């Protein structure tokens, strides 16, 4: 299930990301890559001997300091999973990885829209779910209706 952390580190440094931490967490093996380098690093991971051919999932998280993008990669030939995390500033650029993983096409649009990021390098960087002008819903600064507001409907 878990790939070898040292192999992942060597792939990352070959891709130009030095001193990238790759550590085991409750999630699995998580490596951190810089935001603008994500497409290159994911492509390197895909082409490496670890053979991460599938982008299973992709999500953003509002950490309070910025948006953290998590890429969930899966290697079918070795049955291993790897999580790559990228920290982006609010309103930052989300560099598209659709060249490497077409399955990111809609998910990137969704993430960019719901976290208020700017999609870079995407063939169709439109909003996916919500109408124009809506606040980025999944940011913690955008409140849900409170219990009182619900009651006063």
């Amino acid at each position, binding site marked *: 299930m878990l790939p070898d952390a040292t192999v992942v580190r060597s792939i990352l440094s070959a891709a130009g990301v030095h001193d990238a931490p790759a550590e085991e*967490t*409750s*999630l*699995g093996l998580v490596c951190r890559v810089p935001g603008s380098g994500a497409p290159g690093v994911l492509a390197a991971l895909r082409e490496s001997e670890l053979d991460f*051919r*599938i*982008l*299973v*999932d992709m*999500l953003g*998280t*509002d950490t309070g300091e910025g948006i953290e993008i*998590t890429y*969930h990669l899966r290697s*079918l030939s070795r*049955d291993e999973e790897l999580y790559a995390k990228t920290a982006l500033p609010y309103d930052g650029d989300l560099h598209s990885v*659709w*060249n*490497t*993983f*077409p*399955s990111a*096409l*809609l*998910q990137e649009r*969704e993430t960019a829209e*719901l976290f208020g990021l700017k999609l870079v390098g995407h*063939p*169709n*960087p*439109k*909003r*996916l*779910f*919500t109408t*124009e002008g809506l606040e980025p*819903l*999944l940011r913690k600064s955008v409140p*849900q209706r409170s219990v009182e507001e619900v009651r006063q409907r």
Partner: protein
Amino acid sequence: MTDPRDLVTDVGLLAEGAHDPGSPPAGIRRAPTGVDGLTTEHLVINMGPQHPSTHGVLRLIVEVDGEEIVAAETSLGYLHRGIEKLAETRRYNQLGTLMDRGDYVSGMHGEQAAALAVERLLEVEVPPKARWTRSLVAELTRIASHLIWYGTFGLDTGAMGQFLYAMRDRESILDILEAISGARMMFNYIRPGGVVADLPAGIDGRIRRFCNGFDAYLDEHHALLGGNEIFQARVQGVGEIDADTALAFGLTGANLRASGFGWDVRRERPYDAYPQLDFDVPVGTTGDAWDRYMVRMEEMRQANRMVRQCVDGMPEGDFTAKVPKVIRPPEGEVYASVESSRGETGVHVVSDGSDTPYRYHYRAPSLFACQVLEEILPGHLIADAVMLIGSLDIMLGETDR
């Protein structure tokens, strides 16, 4: 091995003005050629969100040359309820109510994914009876969901009879599930730690009776639709998705297996009672609509087999582990996935130690099926588009969330 870069060809063909999201749709565009002042035009047709065959509120913007599609774009969001945001204010044992409304045709699988994720955070051991009960209801739900797919897929081809016959069988499953969980679709039955209540007395007899009758009904369903030459002519060779495309676009479940790649979460990442259950994973060859049809039909038979095994091998014991009423899992982040009727339904939970998730992400398999549409549709007729949407079994409740 094909490079996925080669696979993406026409994505966003309609979106030339895409950087200005407010721009109006392209409308009718003139094809460049014309003879003696006569020109032919491509027609841009808006298929959905209120089209009879888009299975809910999928909107496809298709550019057609006559009846042949030259470009397609999916447009989602007509059922967006913000489940991921809502989940951030729901306590962990309330998550099932949201997951039910994601993929509302197979609610049990969503609940199962949420429960597995929370259990992984809490690191609780689920008693065997709970695990077997979960597999039992999950497989019953799979049959019910595939029956809806079977019925509506037939409706897409224009046949009507099988829909009602499928509903008859689905009705008996829903009756059983209602007796078990108390609701017909929004079950809220699987909770972190186990299930909410033990199986009611006498339900095993009802399930056995259903299982015994269902195999014959399944043969009849297959003979009625799959045996029909017109239906075969309609689906064979339509919407072929090869394994590389399927993997690159993140297809899972029956759609991936029909392309010849036998990945099944129940096999590769076993959960609940699946390690102890004996089942086969059907795998197609070419990945056309016919293969997807055959794989799903066989999955129903396998699910029926598993239901029978679950009833026969149901262990004694507690139906739930000891889980606090207000669940406060430790800080951490987990991903748990189940094989739902539509593919790998995953739940990614980030916990900050409070009683609500900090971030709750729902991996919806239908979203990936939607994005492969843009890739596969060009070159097909409008009638094939309907077949393709139907065979991919798209559930808009979970794509939009």
